[in-house]
């Protein structure tokens, strides 16, 4: 029983699809309201190259945002960990930025980025969303070092730079890695939400595909784009999970 339990999620998905398919056939639902799974599969196959390209564009913007957020959040976390006053000063702003829905600030960022450059706005908005988990994880990691290890460094007369490079940074690694894992998921969500608000200009990402199919009431194509998005996000999540596992194994030595 438990040996086959890895099949459980696939069995559930299969069951849902079968019921869905039968329900569509029996109830004769109009395709614009609820297309049958087979119709969605056909839309997926038909639009595969275009969907793959759009997925890549969304992913590229999310990754750019992740890199930008990582650099900025890492640098700020480092500064904050060195100065309690700076920590006090920055915290409320960082929290305010985190709790404000990205949709609310999107129009502002679109204006700043220039209406001709929605891609810049999308990257900036996704970076704002990805910023907080990296920042708070890094600060927590840099400031929650084993107090006895800190005492040993006192005893050994370690200089501030030695303490940072040989104690605080290495002991923060697990927190920093976890922050990036959370941020990777948020960056994708941020990119998609931002694309909805900002429009996509030349960079036609997955959100654009969803919007466009919706406007034409091509619901099967809409589903196809959503499925592509879910698959892409899942793959990114799995990759970062694997990365975290590897990083922790390296950090702990096994």
């Amino acid at each position, binding site marked *: 029983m438990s040996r086959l339990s890895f099949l459980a999620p696939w069995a559930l998905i299969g069951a849902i699809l079968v019921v869905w398919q039968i329900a569509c056939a029996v109830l004769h639902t109009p395709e614009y309201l609820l297309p049958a799974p087979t119709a969605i599969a056909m839309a997926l196959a038909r639009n595969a190259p275009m969907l793959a390209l759009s997925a890549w564009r969304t992913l590229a913007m999310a990754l750019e945002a992740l890199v930008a957020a990582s650099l900025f959040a890492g640098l700020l976390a480092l500064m904050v960990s060195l100065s309690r006053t700076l920590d006090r000063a920055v915290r409320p702003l960082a929290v305010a930025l985190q709790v404000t829905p990205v949709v609310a600030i999107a129009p502002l960022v679109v204006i700043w980025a220039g209406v001709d450059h929605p891609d810049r706005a999308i990257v900036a908005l996704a970076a704002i969303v990805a910023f907080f988990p990296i920042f708070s994880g890094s600060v927590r990691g840099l400031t929650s070092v*084993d107090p*006895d*290890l800190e*005492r*040993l*460094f*006192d*005893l*050994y*007369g*370690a200089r501030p730079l*030695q303490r940072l490079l*040989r*104690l605080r940074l*290495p*002991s923060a*690694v697990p927190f920093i890695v976890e922050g990036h894992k959370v941020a990777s998921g948020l960056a994708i969500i941020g990119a998609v939400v931002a694309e909805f608000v900002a429009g996509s200009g030349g960079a036609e990402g997955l959100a654009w595909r969803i919007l466009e199919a919706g406007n034409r009431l091509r619901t099967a194509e809409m589903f196809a784009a959503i499925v592509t998005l879910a698959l892409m996000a899942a793959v990114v999540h799995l990759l970062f999970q694997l990365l975290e596992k590897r990083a922790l194994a390296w*950090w*702990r*030595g*096994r």
Partner: protein
Amino acid sequence: MTAVAALIDVEVDYPGRGRALGPFGLNLQVGEIVALVGPSGCGKSTALRLLAGLEAPTRGSVRRAAGRGETSVVFQSPTLAPWLSATANVALPLELSGVARAEARSRARDALGRVGLAAAVEARPAQLSGGMAMRASLARALVTAPRLLLLDEPFAALDEITRRALADDLLNLWSEARPAIVFVTHNVEEAVYMAGRVIVMTPGPGRSAGETRIDAPAPRPPGFRVTALFRDAVETISNQLANATRAAA
């Protein structure tokens, strides 16, 4: 005999928590082993931090003939950096004080060999058992050839057999260079086995409730735990400890 370190009528107050220690005095001679025994929260660890120079007394004074680089501390937990190999952990105090990396690592491997970890020099802390991690911690304390070694309940988290083996190893290592040792424990038998002088402390604020000299050679001869000297000392100190604890309750 000359003093390595001394606490002179020290008192330590913590804001909001009142007095933790004192008045308390301790004169530590070169090469002697002193055990501080007392219940939890009697300021034993505070006394150690004063001796290490990690904390300053509220009143009274601390004299230290041993300088910064000549003092080592071993905590109750091994306190090893998980991201460093055993060798790198042990080499850390040397590297931080400017010893070249290659030499520091080679001295670290020697120190690990002396505590019986020659086969685990490249292991990470997560791969070591509790006793092995404690040995690595001990190696890190000894690698700087300290004149003053401070041990804060170093064996408290270990099982009885490992504990006894480590106590013997520690005494053997001590006999090579004879650093002065202050050893905090709440295990009376361990204190009598290890120390030439056992000081019983009262529950917080910690004061001396009596001192017992153990006149036996160190390292201890085999079978020392079944001698009358050992049993009498354990009984005397246990009574002192019980009285001190009762008086406070």
